[in-house]
């Protein structure tokens, strides 16, 4: 029984780390721009396809392919911000949301046109399976956890220790004051979209290696990302990390011990429960929106 618990905890942390990557991208965009960037999941899938394409066409390894895909994803994010979100920055928030829906359609279908309708699994070559005291740890899953942890730490350092990160935090805290201090909000917006899209692409690649990149995956991914945001509090980075892991673990337990068909329902019930008890999210003291 204990072995089962630890096994499911491990599985949950692996999935949860991917949710965290998705949610981090969503949460920094929300914190800075107040946009629910619904197309994030499609961008992630785009990155997954692109990585697969690089590996197949140029025979380069997983990590170089992933790095290039993340760079392309960052560029795509900047373009989206400039072309689509920037013009509606002063309109009511619902307009940005509709833009996000339009972008989702565009990117989703462009993926279909460019990469085809088949699902692809990104080849990694990590096929070994470790076994520690009855708990099976597939090599791939261990690496996923490692990669996700590395990216989360890298992003935290970027946000907390660099000048650009300081500008991002300043805009999130108080936009008018940040503008008065001479921070170029446009640059910050573009930076945030680039960073967030790169993280999204990384999440897409990990999903593609663990399960598959396929049409229709992106919607579920982005909704899980938002569920994490609700759990952790919109705009909160620690909230996204904790929320992602909590969601992943509770899903793993739910599918192992209750029903795998209804695991998503349980995730959403958790979300509604948090809303009832602590509407501002687990990691926030009070709501300031």
């Amino acid at each position: 029984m204990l072995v089962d618990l630890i096994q499911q905890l491990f599985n949950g942390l692996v999935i949860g780390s991917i949710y965290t990557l998705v949610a981090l991208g969503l949460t920094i965009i929300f914190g800075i721009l107040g946009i629910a960037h619904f197309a994030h999941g499609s961008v992630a899938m785009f990155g997954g396809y692109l990585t697969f394409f690089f590996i197949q066409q140029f025979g380069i390894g997983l990590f170089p392919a992933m790095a290039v895909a993340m760079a392309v994803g960052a560029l795509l994010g900047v373009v989206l911000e400039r072309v689509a979100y920037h013009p509606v920055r002063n309109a009511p928030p619902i307009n940005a949301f509709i833009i996000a829906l339009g972008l989702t359609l565009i990117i989703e279908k462009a993926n279909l046109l460019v990469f085809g309708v088949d699902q692809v699994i990104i080849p990694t070559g990590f096929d070994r399976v470790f076994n520690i005291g009855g708990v099976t740890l597939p090599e791939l899953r261990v690496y996923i956890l490692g990669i996700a942890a590395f990216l989360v730490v890298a992003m935290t350092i970027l946000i907390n220790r660099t000048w650009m990160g300081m500008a991002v935090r300043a805009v999130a805290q108080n936009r008018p004051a940040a503008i008065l201090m001479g921070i170029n909000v446009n640059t910050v917006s573009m930076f945030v979209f680039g960073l967030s899209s790169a993280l999204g692409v990384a999440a897409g690649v990990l999903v593609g290696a663990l399960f598959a990149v396929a049409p229709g995956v992106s919607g579920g991914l982005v909704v899980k990302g938002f569920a994490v945001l609700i759990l952790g509090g919109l705009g909160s980075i620690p909230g996204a990390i904790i929320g992602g892991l909590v969601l992943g673990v509770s899903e793993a337990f739910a599918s192992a011990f209750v029903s795998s068909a209804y695991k998503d329902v349980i995730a959403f019930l958790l979300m509604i429960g948090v809303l009832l008890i602590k509407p501002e999210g687990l990691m926030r003291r009070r709501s300031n929106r």
Partner: protein
Amino acid sequence: MIRLVLIAAVAFGGIAFPYLLTSNYFIHLAILAIIWMIVAQGANVIQGYTGYVSIAQAGFMGIGAYSSALLNLNAGWPVWICMIVSPLITAAASLIAGYPSLRVKGHYFAIVTLALNMVIFIVLVNWIPVTGGEGGIAGIPAPESIRIADIEISFLSRVNYYYLVLAALGLVMLIIAALLRSRVGLVLQAIRQNETMAEAAGVACWRYKLFSFVFSASLAGFAGSLYAHYMSFLSPAPFSVDHSLNAILAVILGGSGTLAGPLVGAGLTVALPEILRIADSYRLIIYGVGLVIVVIFLPRGLVPWLSDLVRRAVRGRTGKPTEGR
């Protein structure tokens, strides 16, 4: 004056439609469009007038459709009764769901309702003994034919069903128009404009928000029932999040917070994909691009934009200012 003429023209056009375009395909599209107009009218109440975006309309439509079909097939209730009861069942479901959801505002609310729609969808797919899962439910009968004087009206005929949904839409619009003129309607619009102020003026906002949510959901449930007995086959697919987004798009495209907006918007969201079929696989991309362009350049939607144009033209000709709405 222009307004009355327009309303009369639209009503006449709606009634004459089956005689103008006799093709079965067009009547089929028109029935679907009208069903979606009812959903969009419901979405408009919560989204356009109350200012809360609910992404669960298609899910509620599913609850209405399945409950209507199941009550008819398993409990043997007449279709007409099912059509009245299913919106009530949807209302009950939305009451339970709305209470926790409405504790939060803005994006939170949108996301929670989105999750709610996913839950409904997952249940429809996985509760196989009741809903039939992906396989769906087949053989849902049309409403029983009714007899007026000596003429028997059968709803197996497409044209007759068209008039049924048209009458339903008319009824829904009358109810909404009356609602908007009532105190409740005014409070809802006050909530959209400034919820804090409405609260400060002594309005128990949550009651009105809950009412608005439940009302819009029950309209979606009603539309679902109409859909079920028209299609005679139900599967979970039309009740996914995508279609909730469609309802929102209909409201935004047409113009949120106007009575005519959802009609135009829903008509377009049904017609555009059919028209754009020429472009085949590029269709949805064009659809998305169009959407982005409309939101950037016509943020208030088509109907307010057109009525502004008309008003400006009228004012230009007569030289005297017309009253604002």
